[in-house]
């Protein structure tokens, strides 16, 4: 069975909703990274003793999910449904091909490792 990596950038405060949305479609493993995004969404201004700084990097979370190819659509849809707020900066999802997956504990490979 082919394997895919789904990467999603989301707004941090949506993490609980997204977790729930993913659980509903059978995802029970993922890896989260705190990242900063730059895009259409405006950042903010900070001021320290009169020195103004434009901060255009916005805190985001990156989710990585490895999955069987046949589940990709369902998961992407669940991500979109649970992460969207409708306002700019909701984030991106991208899907990449994988060649192998291994479970470290057991050395299982492929779909069994997920």
């Amino acid at each position, binding site marked *: 069975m082919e394997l895919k990596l789904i990467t999603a950038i989301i707004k941090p*405060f949506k993490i*609980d909703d997204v977790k729930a949305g993913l659980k509903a479609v059978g995802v029970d493993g993922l890896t989260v990274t705190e990242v*900063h995004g730059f895009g259409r969404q405006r950042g*903010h*201004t*900070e*001021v*320290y003793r009169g020195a103004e*700084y*434009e*901060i255009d*990097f916005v805190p985001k979370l990156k989710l990585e999910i490895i999955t069987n190819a046949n589940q990709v659509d369902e998961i992407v849809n669940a991500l979109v449904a649970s992460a969207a707020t409708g306002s700019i900066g909701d984030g991106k999802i991208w899907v990449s091909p994988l060649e192998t997956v291994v479970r470290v504990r057991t050395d299982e490979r492929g779909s069994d490792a997920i």
Partner: protein
Amino acid sequence: MNTTDTLWVILSAALVLFMTPGLALFYGGMVRSKNVLAIMMNSLAAMAVVTVIWVAIAGSLSFGDDLGGGLLGNLSLAGLAHIPSSLPGLSGVHASSLSVLLYQMMFAIITAALISGGTTDRIKFSSFVILIAVWTVAVYAPLAHWVFSPTGWLAHRGVLDFAGGTVVEINSGFSTLAVVLVLGPRKGWPRDSMTPHSVPLSLLGLGILWFGWLGFNGGSSLAMNGVAVSAVLNTQLAAAAGLIGWLIYERTTEHYATTLGAASGGVAGMVAITPCAGFVQPYAALIIGLIAGLACAKAVRMKFKLGIDDSLDVLGVHGVGGVIGMVLLGLFATKSINPAGADGLLQGGGFALLGNELLAIVVTASFAFGVTWLIAQAISKTIGLRVSEEDELKGLDLTQHAESAYSGGGSGRFSS
């Protein structure tokens, strides 16, 4: 003027002043990192605004000549320009009058700052400033006059309150409750996780509070004498017992003992001993602290059932702890520690004192709640009390103060 007494009062004033940054840290550690500066700023604002208002008017309303019926002082002390050598009713005090007014100013500051523990994460900065400015005049000053000035009607009736079980503790607890009810809970509360962003900051705050509280209670003798020594000792004992009480509650009901619980228990013990510090014996201080630790641990767990987002438990710790202290003072007060005091129920003094203490509790809680509720409503209906939902989500540090508490550096974000 007795220089040793004055030195003691000045030193105590400095210690109480130091408690407010301590409180800012204690509270700051408990909120999420996006709101830490905003809550610390509330304490800073109290240090500035209440100071000015106290000098201008509130100090005089509290300790000026009584206007009649023990209800309020007049403006004889306004501006602190002409200070009599002893304040009305305090002719037995030999510390300089100015030092006493300075010391009392610090009490007004920290009481105002305490309110921020309930309103954190959602109150507008400008509204908080207006709130505490009005409140210092309309709520704090009358209460201080009633209880701390011997010419006040509660003091005159024989209510005992050594260092502010009513004026500081019950007052802050019920005032905060009023503001919180007007303000509403934080978005997402209690569903979302709102864990303390830095417990060590809170523990540091506790350390400063504990240190300062020795002067907060000790200084209330307004003289360096045996009563002052007892007050300091009792504060230490109640803090220790309160800490133990809270941990006992946690271990027996929930199988763990937390550091934030320990810190909270220490505070609860010191809150409860505040009215009692110069009136009770060491064993009583231990009992009072222990009961406060147990009871406040229970109390803070009830807000979830009541659905009241008193975020950092001002009511649960200061309100409840203050009530406990006042009630137990009615039981444990003894003239053997302080001849100027009274004997409580368990010391053969009958119900007289207990009755007075209960009256003071009811009066303080009702007055503080009622008037503060009116002030909060007025602000809410006019300029608004609360930030927008979007600002609340982004955090008050950024949206109210254009700052981030912690930053990595380069490009404003990444360490370089």
